[in-house]
């Protein structure tokens, strides 16, 4: 399904693009065992009562300042799961994204890669970039950058 279909059917909560479905059913980079994972930065946003919580862990190459690993866990609907999954791919593909570039990612960038979301689900993708920025902030605080 292309983006136009999603836009025109924005009242139909179940209309998801193929990319969304793929990342929902086969999410990439989910963190399985939190206890053993040593991240360089961690960020968490959302609240259970609102229906979405996202937690993002990043590992950063200290020399290149590129994100080399991005792990996550998400409580939420298909849009929330898929947008965190695709975000984790976006920041780690092609050798990893520079921290400064990753910090500039916005929900629109995630939406574009997902092939759009139903209109009432767009807030789910907004959480993804916020969680990533929280993790980058945490990394910078830890390293006093």
């Amino acid at each position, binding site marked *: 399904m292309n983006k136009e279909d999603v836009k025109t059917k924005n009242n139909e909560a179940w209309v998801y693009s193929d990319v969304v479905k793929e990342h929902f059913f086969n999410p990439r980079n989910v963190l399985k065992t939190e206890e053993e994972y040593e991240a360089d930065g961690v960020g968490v946003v959302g609240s*259970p009562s609102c229906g*979405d919580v996202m937690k993002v862990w990043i590992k950063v190459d200290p020399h290149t300042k590129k994100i080399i690993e991005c792990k996550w866990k*998400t409580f939420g609907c*298909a849009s929330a799961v898929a947008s965190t999954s695709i975000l984790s791919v976006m920041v780690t593909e092609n050798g990893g994204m520079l921290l400064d570039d990753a910090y500039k990612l916005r929900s629109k960038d995630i939406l574009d890669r997902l092939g759009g979301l139903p209109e009432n689900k767009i807030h789910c993708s907004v959480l993804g970039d916020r969680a990533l920025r929280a993790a980058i902030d945490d990394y910078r605080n830890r390293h006093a950058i």
Partner: protein
Amino acid sequence: MKTIYLDYAATTSVDELVLEKMLPFFTEKYGNPSSLHSVGREAKLAISQARETIAKHFNCLPREIIFTGSGTESDNLAIIGVAMANRHKGKHIITTKIEHHAVLYACSYLEQNGFEITYLPVNKDGIVDPKDVRAAISEQTVLVSVIFANNEIGTIQPIKEIAAICNSSKVLMHTDACQAAGAFILDVRDLGVDLLTINGSKIYGPKGVGALFVREGVKVSPMLYGGTQEFSRRAGTENIPGIVGMAEALHLVQSEREDENARLIKMRDRLIKELLTLIPKSRLNGHPTQRLPNNINMSFLDVEGESIILHLDAKGVCVSTGSACTSTDLEASHVLLALGLPDELAHGSVRLTLGKYTTESDIEYVIKILPEVISRLREMSPLCSKVEDYAGLFERL
């Protein structure tokens, strides 16, 4: 892959026997019942017979049945129609926090137009206390509307007791019995109600047709203006195939009622017991026994309903949820919140409603895959809530 449909509370398929009765009224018996000629008379006769069938099951007079276009329309006609026709007597209506939106939004429309509405609470199992109804009745009260069996959590309300209170206070009583129509005897005299709603699409009848029982002598203002159909209370050429189908559907579900209830209750209770045992941090929403034979509503901590539904759907199982994420207004189920559940438990809710085509092997399949789905989603959830943090909400059956 076989589809296992467990969303009978959303709608049912049309029974083959019902469809058979309906079909002639699309083609050879196509008349307008208002026409005087033979073709029209044939259609008029079909409506009369359907009205009699329903009246027999309701234990009422045929002229006390009004055909409408849906359960929603029947609810709207009952609430707004009674309010408008009786506004000189008073402008207060009592209902509950767990009504279907067809009642709730009809009430809020009246609220915006100068009526006062009392929304009664329910207890933690979702049951209305008749004493609360009595206490809420004032000189201004004209109508009480309480759902017979709730569409989300299946709880059965003490309709007879509430109706008795209304009758003794000279207040009219309406009940939405759409979900209850297949499972209970709908004797309106025995129940003591003045108005009662049913529709076709929950009882293996067609969509787009409903009925409203209005006790003789009760004044109801019409919502649609035009011809004199339905005793001038609902204008518009009648949906003959729909009406014929709904009457046949009601007749069929009522004749199979006792056996089917017993079969459904057995499967329902097995599924509830197994899921509560197999899935940690799970709870049954609604009353354990005072509920529809086909209704299961459960909440699972740390997972979200839409995700559960989509995973089940991918495995061929169709269910629904009270999570905000599947509603267009992004608000969690008002029914689950009225039970006192925190938002996150409403978000993590799933409703499974069984029906006449549900088999024991369908139940076994759900018992196998639902725990797997919950466990998979919990693996990717950052939450790790503790049952102890939800005092009183997780005691076992």
